[in-house]
C-alpha cells in the first residue's frame, strides 16, 4: 500500500507572541515541532505500513527549517520525505496551500492509495487543507476517522467517522484521502538520538521551479483570503467605576483586571465550607436561580 502523509512544521503555539508593530509573529526562540495532529495521522499510517508491507512518503510545504520536522518523520519510519519550499509560497492561505501540495504530488509522480492528513494545524487551526487537497486531486474524503481498516485485495477502506451524534461507518474504494481525528492513534514518543542518525540530505527539497505552475497561483498571489490584522484577544467588557462607591470598593474593582462586574456579584469568603455552601444556596434560591421545591 502506498501512503502519503501530509505534515506541517508548526511553532509550539503555547509560546507564540505577536509583534504589534509589524503585525507579524515572533518566531525566534519558539520551539518548532511536527504538528501534533499530523503525528497522529502518521502513527496510523505506520500501523498500516506494517500491516500491508507498504511505503510511506511524507510531504510538507514550509520554510527551509521544516527539514527538521521531516527528518523526525524519517526517524519514525517513513520511507521518503519531500519538502516543497520556496519564498514564493509565503503568505499562502489554505486554497493556495492545497493547490501547491497537489501540484507537488503530481510533479513528483508520487503514487498513492491513501493520503493521510491531520485534523488541523495548531497554528492556523482551520482544518481546511485536507478537504482542499482532496478537491484538487478529485479524491473522496473520509474525515474525522477514529478507526481505519484497509482491505488491500478489495482495494477499499472502511473508516469509523466520529460525528456529534455518534459513529458513521463509511466505506470507499481506493484511492482516498483520510483526515485523522485526534483520537485515531497515539503517537509514540521519539528520542532525540533517533533523529541524529538521519542524514542531512535525506529530505528531498523541491522549489517552485520544479513544480511548474504559475506564480499567480502561489503564495499570497494565489490566496483568496488575506490576514489584514492580528492582535491579542481583548478582555471582555470595559472598566466602569462608579465614583460614588466606597473607597475600598473602587480599589477592589480596579484590581479585578478591568473586567466589568455584573450587578450584584456575590462572592462568599472567609467562612467554613458548610457555612459558605449554605450561604450560596440561600442566595441562589433568593434570586430564583434555583427553584425551591
Amino acid at each position: 500500500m502506498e501512503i502519503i502523509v501530509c505534515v506541517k512544521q508548526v511553532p509550539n503555539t503555547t509560546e507564540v507572541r505577536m509583534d504589534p508593530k509589524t503585525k507579524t509573529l515572533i518566531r525566534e526562540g519558539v520551539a518548532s515541532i511536527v504538528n501534533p495532529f499530523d503525528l497522529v495521522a502518521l502513527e496510523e499510517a505506520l500501523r498500516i505500513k506494517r500491516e500491508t508491507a507498504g511505503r510511506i512518503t511524507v510531504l510538507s510545504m514550509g520554510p527551509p527549517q521544516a527539514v527538521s520536522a521531516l527528518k523526525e518523520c524519517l526517524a519514525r519510519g517513513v520511507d521518503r520525505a519531500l519538502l516543497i519550499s520556496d519564498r514564493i509560497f509565503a503568505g499562502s492561505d489554505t486554497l493556495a496551500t492545497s493547490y501547491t501540495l497537489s501540484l507537488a504530488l503530481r510533479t513528483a509522480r508520487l503514487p498513492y492509495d491513501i493520503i493521510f492528513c491531520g485534523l488541523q494545524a495548531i497554528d492556523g487551526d482551520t482544518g481546511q487543507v485536507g478537504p482542499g487537497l482532496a478537491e484538487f486531486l478529485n479524491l473522496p474524503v473520509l474525515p474525522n476517522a477514529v478507526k481505519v481498516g484497509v482491505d488491500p485485495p478489495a482495494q477499499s477502506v472502511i473508516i469509523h467517522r466520529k460525528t456529534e451524534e455518534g459513529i458513521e461507518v463509511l466505506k470507499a474504494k481506493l484511492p482516498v484521502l483520510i483526515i485523522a481525528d485526534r483520537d485515531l492513534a497515539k503517537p509514540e514518543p521519539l528520542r532525540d538520538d533517533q533523529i541524529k542518525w538521519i542524514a542531512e540530505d535525506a529530505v528531498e527539497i523541491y522549489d517552485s521551479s520544479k513544480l511548474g505552475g504559475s506564480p499567480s497561483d502561489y503564495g499570497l498571489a494565489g490566496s483568496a483570503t488575506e490576514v489584514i490584522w492580528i492582535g491579542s484577544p481583548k478582555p471582555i467588557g470595559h472598566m466602569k467605576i462608579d465614583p460614588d462607591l466606597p473607597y475600598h470598593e473602587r480599589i477592589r474593582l480596579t484590581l479585578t483586571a478591568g473586567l466589568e462586574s455584573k450587578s450584584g456579584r456575590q462572592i462568599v469568603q472567609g467562612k467554613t465550607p458548610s457555612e459558605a455552601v449554605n450561604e450560596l444556596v440561600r442566595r441562589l434560591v433568593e434570586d430564583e436561580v434555583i427553584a425551591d421545591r
Partner: protein
Amino acid sequence: MAVQVDTQKCNGCQACLSACPYNAIQWQGETAAINQNCTSCGLCLPVCPQEAITRSIKVLCRDLSRWNGVWVYGERDERGIKKVTLELLGEARKLAKARNTHVAAVLIGSDVEQFVNLLYRHGADKVYLIDDRRLNRFSQDLYVPLLVRAVQRYQPEIFLFGATVNGRVLAPSVAVRLGTGLTADCTGLSINSEGNLKQTRPAFGGNIMASILCANTRPQMATVRPNVMDKDEQSQWTPGEVIRLEWNLDEFKPRVEWVDFIQAEGEKIDLENAEIIVSGGFGVGSAENFRIIEDLAETLGAAVGCSRKVVDAGWMPHDRQVGQTGKSVRPRIYIACGISGAIQHQIGMRKSDKIIAINSDPKAPIFSLADYGIVGDLFEIIPLLSEALRPYVRRG
C-alpha cells in the same frame, strides 16, 4: 476553480464531452464551451489532447456588484434544524442590513420542506430547497456539487456555515471548487467601509486574534461555531420565497458508501445544548479527581466541561473543553470549579446566564466574571454543594 476552454486551442475532437459527468460541456459552433452545470470537478482537463481546458484556482470576480445576498447553509440533525443555523441567520440579518441585501437559507436533505417556516422566523427572506430522498444522509459527493451549482447560479456575496463536524469538511470543499476564500471558526463578522466582510477569528491556539478579508473573490465564505452568534427569532414574521432546485441527482455518483451508524454510548449530555454545566479546571488536580466534578454534574443533571489546561494534561477529552478553541456554551447555570478564568476560557462561557465560581484564589479572574462564588477548597466545597443542591434539582 473555474473551468475554461481556450477556443484557439480547441480542435473540435469532442473528447471532453463524454468525460463530463454533468453535461456541462456543450458545443458552440466549432469549439467546446462550459455551461452552468459545471461543478469544477476537473475530470475534463486530462482528456483534452490539445490541453485546451484549464482551471483557474482562484476565481477573481470582475464585477462584485453582481453578487448579492447573504446565504446560510441550513444543517439538519435528528431533532430538526441545528441551532447553529438559526444563530447564523440572526447574524446574516445584521450583515444583510449593512449591505442592503437579503438573507437566504440553503437547505439540502430529505423531507426538509417542513422547516422553511422555522427559517423565515429566524431571519431568512428566501429558502433554496433541494429536497430528495437520496439526500437524507450527509454525502460530500452529493452536497458539494449541489451547493457549488447553487452558488454559481444565484451568486451570493457571503456564505456562512456552522463549524459543525460536517460543516468543517463541506465548506472547504465548496470553497476550493468555487475558487474562493474561506475563514474558519469566526468569532466576529462585520461589513467594512468598502462593503467587504471582515472576518475575525482566533489562531495559534487562541493566543492571537486575526482579521481576514476575502476581497476579490465571491462568495466570501466563513464558518462559525455554535453558541457564538445570536439567534434573532421574530414573533412577527412573513413567509418568504421558496426556490426549489430540482436538479437531476442521477448524474452524481457518490464514491463514499454509508455502511452503518453506531449511537454514541451513554446518555452524554451535549455541552452546547446543556442547561447546566459543571466545569473543572486545573485546580481539580488529576484525572481521578474529576470524579467529584462528574458526581456534582450527575446530581444536577448537568453536562461536564473543562478548561484547556485539563485537556492538555490529558485528564479529559477535547470534546469537553469549553473555551475559544473548544466549545462555546450558553447554559442557564455554569459552575466553574478550580478554573482560574483565562481570557480564552471566558470567551467560551461568558454568555452563560448565571456563573458560579469555586476557587481557592480570591484573585482568580473567574471571580470578576462570576455572579456567585465561593473562595475555598473545591474538594471540601463541592461534595457539600452537591448535597445542599439536591433538594432543588428538578429530575425527569
